[in-house]
C-alpha cells in the first residue's frame, strides 16, 4: 500500500520547462502569482490566462495531470465564487429575500475562479517539472542572502535533502514492519477509524526506534566524510543561467508589461 505514494509530484520529461534552471522557475512562479492577482480587467485577465495556458502547453506534462490537481480544490472554487456572486454592489439583476445578484458580483466570481485556476495550474507546473532534489537545491541557493539575518540556510537545506533521501527508505521499512506485525496476528484492517489508528501503534513505535538508529548511523557516516556544517563547503553542481532561462525571464517581463498596460488603458472591471 505505502509503495504507491509518489515522492512529490515530479514527472520526468524532456520539455522546455524541465530544462529550465529551478531557481529561475521559482522566481518566475512568484512573479506569475503576483501578476495573477494584479489583473483588474478582462483584457489583462485574458492575457495572463493565455500565458499560463502557453506555459502548461510547453511543459510536456499530460493535461490529465493538471485536471487532477484542479480536482482537489474544486470545492474551494465553487464556494468562493458563490460567495462573491452575492457580494457585489450596485443594481441587482435578481433579488430574493436578503440575496441579490449584481453584475459586479458575477464579474467578481469570474475573476476569483480564473485567478485560482491559473494559480493552481502554474504552481503545479513547477512541481511537475522539477525534481525534489533540484527544488531543495534551488531553494538553498535562493535563500542564501537570508544568512545576514542569521537564518541557517545550509542546515535547513541539508535537513530537506536528508528527509527526501529517507522517505522511500522509511516507507519500505513501514511495509516490512506492517508485514511482521501482521504475521504475529496484528489486525490493521478491521474496525472503525479510531480502531484503525490505534492499530498503527505497533507499527509506529518500531519505526521511530529504527529512524533514530538510522539518524545516529548517518551522523557518524557524515562526520566520517568530514561534514562540518555549511562553512567552507563547495558544491559540485554550478547552476548557470542559460539562454533558455533568459528567454523565459524575457517572456515573463513581456507579460508583466502587458498586464500593466492593460490595467492602465482599459477601465477596471472590479
Amino acid at each position, binding site marked *: 500500500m505505502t509503495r504507491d505514494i509518489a515522492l512529490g509530484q515530479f514527472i520526468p520529461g524532456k520539455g522546455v520547462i524541465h530544462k529550465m534552471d529551478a531557481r529561475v522557475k521559482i522566481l518566475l512562479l512568484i512573479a506569475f502569482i503576483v501578476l495573477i492577482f494584479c489583473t483588474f480587467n478582462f483584457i489583462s485577465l485574458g492575457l495572463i490566462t493565455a500565458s499560463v495556458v502557453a506555459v502548461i502547453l510547453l511543459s510536456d506534462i499530460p493535461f490529465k495531470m493538471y485536471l487532477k490537481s484542479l480536482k482537489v480544490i474544486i470545492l474551494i472554487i465553487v464556494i468562493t465564487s458563490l460567495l462573491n456572486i452575492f457580494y457585489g454592489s450596485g443594481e441587482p439583476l435578481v433579488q430574493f429575500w436578503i440575496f441579490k445578484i449584481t453584475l459586479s458580483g458575477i464579474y467578481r466570481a469570474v475573476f476569483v475562479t480564473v485567478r485560482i485556476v491559473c494559480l493552481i495550474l502554474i504552481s503545479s507546473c513547477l512541481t511537475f517539472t522539477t525534481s525534489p532534489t533540484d527544488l531543495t537545491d534551488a531553494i538553498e541557493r535562493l535563500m542564501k542572502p537570508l544568512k545576514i539575518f542569521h537564518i541557517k540556510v545550509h542546515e535547513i537545506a541539508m535537513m530537506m535533502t536528508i528527509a527526501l*533521501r529517507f522517505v522511500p527508505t522509511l516507507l519500505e521499512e513501514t511495509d516490512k514492519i506492517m508485514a511482521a506485525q501482521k504475521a504475529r496476528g496484528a489486525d490493521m484492517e478491521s474496525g472503525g477509524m479510531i480502531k484503525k489508528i490505534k492499530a498503527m501503534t505497533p507499527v509506529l513505535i518500531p519505526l521511530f526506534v529504527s529512524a533514530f538508529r538510522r539518524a545516529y548511523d548517518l551522523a557518524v557516516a557524515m*562526520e566520517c566524510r568530514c*561534514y562540518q556544517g555549511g562553512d567552507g*563547503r*563547495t*558544491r559540485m553542481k554550478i547552476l548557470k543561467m542559460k539562454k533558455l532561462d533568459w528567454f523565459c525571464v524575457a517572456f515573463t517581463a513581456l507579460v508583466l508589461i502587458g498586464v500593466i498596460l492593460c490595467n492602465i488603458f482599459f477601465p477596471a472591471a472590479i
Partner: protein
Amino acid sequence: MSFISVENVKFSYDEDKKNVLNDINLKIEQGEFVALLGHNGCGKSTAAKLLNAMILPDEGVVIVDKMNTSDEKLTYEIRRNVGLVLQNPDNQLVASVIEEDVAFGPENLGVPPEEIRERVDRALKTVDMYEYRKHAPHKLSGGQKQRVAIAGILAMQPTCVVFDEPTAMLDPNGREEVMNTILTLKQNGITVVLITHYMNEAVMADRVIVMDKGVVLTEGNPREVFSQVNLLKKHSLDVPQATELAYKLLGIGLKFDEMPLNTDECVDYLEGVLK
C-alpha cells in the same frame, strides 16, 4: 615508523564501566591489507573509530601518517586520510542522487567544483557504478549501495580505508561485489583495514589480527593465524571451512604440512591423499 600505529591504547565508553579496549597495540603499514577478527563486543568497531579520530583514546596514542588523532586541528585531515565504511549501506548515503552523494565528501572539504566532478566520476568508475550515477539510492541492491558508499569515501582521496563489517548485511552476491571492490582498492595502493565475521574474507588479507576482550590475541599472515585452530576455538572464533575440515581430519590421523585456507587447497590435498 608505521603508517598507522596504535600504542598502549585504553578506551571505555563509560567511565564506570570496564575498558572496551585494554592496552591495545596495533601497527599497520602503508599499502597493507589487514583483516581484524574477533567476536561481538571484542572492541573491533571501537578500534575502527579510533583510527579516524571519531573517538579519542583515554590513554595511549593513535598516530596516523605522523598525525596524532588527539590533535583537534588535525581531525578533518585525519578523517580525509582514513575513510570509514560502515555496516549498513542505507544509513551512509546522504543525497537522493548517487553522484551527489559521492560528491558529499569533497564538497565538505571545499574542493573546487570541476575537480569534484572529476573525482566523483573516477570514484564511481573504480567501484564500477558509473552508469548508475543518476539513479536514486533506494532503487539499488545492497551490494551496489555499499559500493556507492565506498565511492563516497574514495572521492576524498584517502590513503587508507577502514571497513567495519561492510558485508554483514549483504547477500552472497553483494558480498562478492564488495570484496572485489576492496581488492581493487588494495591494488591501487590504498591501505585496507577490514573488520569482518567471515573467515573466507579474512583469508584474502596480507595479515590477520585477532582481537578478544579489548586486546590483540594473535596476529600474523592468514596461514599462521588459522593454523592455531585450538586457540581460536578456545575463544569461540571460527576458522575457514576448509581449515575446519582439515582440523577434523587431523583427529583421524591425516597429516598436513600446512593447514589449507580455501576450498581449492583442501581439494588438492585430499586428492593427493586419496590417490
